[in-house]
């Protein structure tokens, strides 16, 4: 009688079945719908915008871009947009990282519940969320009322209809986009690496700084990039919660389109923004290439 030598429950990592290659025709078939949607919904309008930006009243010209370069309004809005996008994505990252870390350490069951909680605001209309923010953070909002009740000396705080308001709302808006790439990169770290570090004598603090953080940095970079790009293109949130002087790029485009009817200028701004975002993504990909 020979008892079978059974395989361990430990298992080897990465043995899930992944077909090495699909047939080219299959790839083409799967890609076609996506490419079609992108062509009709994104590339065509972009091409039209590019054409419009280069096509003034008197035929081909780069006047629209020259005018932008000389416009103080454009540069002010541009730098304001970058600042808000930067601040809100940093805030989202700082808030999202501990959240993702917590989620990565729970059991899959608890994690699913937490994921739903993160996704609920994501599924809620921006309009609804913006009004909710006014109820919470407005001059007569819940927060200021509470502060007044506690005799807070510097109230009421002006948290809405200015840059702070846009920042708060946008950070809130992009948190799900930050949490998921972070969570993915955290779950990819082999649990035994943490156990090994613990057995070797590392404190939780050391493990975080020397193991968790370096291993999740590529995920954090990806998360930041997504948040930042979303921030650059924000439109509804600044329109609803921003101050009059806190125009963002998207609102400036809208203003040119509908108020001054200067389509070449609007198109030139859109093309410039798109170009900048593409350049940023290219740069970020180069910098944060995964290390393993």
């Amino acid at each position, binding site marked *: *009688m*020979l*008892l079978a*030598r*059974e*395989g*361990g*429950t*430990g298992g*080897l*990592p990465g043995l899930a079945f992944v077909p090495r290659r699909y047939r080219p025709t299959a790839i083409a078939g799967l890609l076609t719908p996506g490419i079609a949607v992108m062509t009709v919904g994104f590339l065509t309008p972009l091409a039209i915008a590019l054409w419009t930006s280069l096509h003034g009243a008197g035929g081909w010209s780069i006047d629209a871009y020259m005018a932008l370069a000389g416009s103080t309004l454009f540069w002010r809005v541009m730098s304001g947009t970058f600042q808000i996008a930067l601040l809100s994505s940093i805030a989202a990252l700082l808030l999202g990282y501990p959240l993702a870390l917590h989620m990565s350490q729970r059991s899959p069951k608890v994690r699913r519940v937490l994921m739903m909680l993160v996704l609920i605001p994501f599924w809620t209309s921006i309009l609804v969320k913006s009004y909710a923010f006014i109820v919470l953070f407005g001059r007569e909002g819940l927060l200021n009322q509470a502060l007044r009740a506690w005799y807070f000396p510097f109230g009421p705080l002006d948290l809405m209809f200015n840059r702070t308001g846009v920042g708060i709302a946008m950070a809130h808006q992009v948190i799900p986009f930050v949490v998921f790439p972070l969570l993915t990169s955290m779950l990819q770290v*082999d649990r*035994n*690496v943490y*156990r*090994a*570090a*613990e*057995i*070797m*004598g*590392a*404190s939780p603090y*050391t493990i975080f700084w*020397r*193991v968790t953080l*370096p*291993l999740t940095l590529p995920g954090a970079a990806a998360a930041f990039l997504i948040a930042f790009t979303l921030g650059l293109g924000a439109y509804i949130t600044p329109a609803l919660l921003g101050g009059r002087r806190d125009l963002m790029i998207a609102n400036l485009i809208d203003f040119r389109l509908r108020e001054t009817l200067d389509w070449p200028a609007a198109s030139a701004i859109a093309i410039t923004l798109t170009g900048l975002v593409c350049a940023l993504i290219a740069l970020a990909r180069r910098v944060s290439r995964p*290390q*393993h």
Partner: protein
Amino acid sequence: MADRAGSGTPISFRGIEKRFGGVSALSPVTLDIEPGEFLTLLGPSGSGKTTLLNIVAGLVEPSAGQLWFGEQEVTDLPARERGVGMVFQNYALMPHLSVFENIAFPLRVRKISRADIAVRVKEVLQLVGMLSLADRRPRQLSGGQQQRVSIARCLVYKPSIVLMDEPLGALDKKLRMQLQLEIKRLHEQLGFTALYVTHDQDEAMSMSDRICLMDGGRTVQISEPTELYFRPQSSFAAGFLGEANLFEATLVQQNGHAFLEGAGGLRLGPAPEGARPGSRRTALLRPENVRVLATDESAENEAIGQVSEVAFFGGDTRLTVTLPSGMSLVIRGSTGHGLVKSGRGETLRIGWCDSAVTALPEQSA
């Protein structure tokens, strides 16, 4: 943090139990491991080997019982304060650090000076023959090389207890043999107490001072490899290590002579001392102890059977013989000692000497 360099620390399990939810993974385990001993936990999947090892590491908290390292009770000591070393099956190296930095990690945690770190890391790299690859990242190494690095990382802080959970499980046969020898050499050279997990019986027998055979969360038998192989205390132990012919035997008294008799009146061997006539026991006969008899040969115990299966393994040949009682008996021996000539359907005379038969203790029969 304990840095008990030099000799190994004894480990003592005193009624250690583990339940996951309501389900018992370890029934009370009481076991003493000698300082510097190489003890292997052997058993089928799910028998609780990893759980027991993780309790020593401090990764799993026992539900009951005490764990002692020498004179110190460590049951509630956090993993990072136990100072043990551990080698994992999947290496568990840090992918973002070079080989050098991986091995330096436990030393940096211990706030050892840069210069000392450089010296000690070089030392262990030399010990495992990986000095030339110090700057590589783990993913640039083969499985065997990664396991060498993780062994080096575990030895660099001179733990007096080293735990290994199927460290060679992901490697191919040849590499396994090579690393088995290296681990054995390191153990002899450094003198740590080794607690090793495997479900490979050959590995367990060739490396261990003692083997703790486990089944269903219970320790079945704790003995030296030869003892476990030749004097198993249960049919589970007999069947788990190597191949075993197990017979249901009855103790028969004839002409003032007591012997074990199998089905069909087959004489298996002498009765064990002190056994009552008529009692039933399980008798073990290892396949390599059965010979095919030539016409002029005889043996203390003989049988006639028909070959039902022939398997050729190069140096060894394995025959399955059906006895007149219908029972199958496996014979294994060197090819060329009459074994390879036998073909299927052939009738053979086989025999074995009295000392080849072991009666298992009564309670396990």
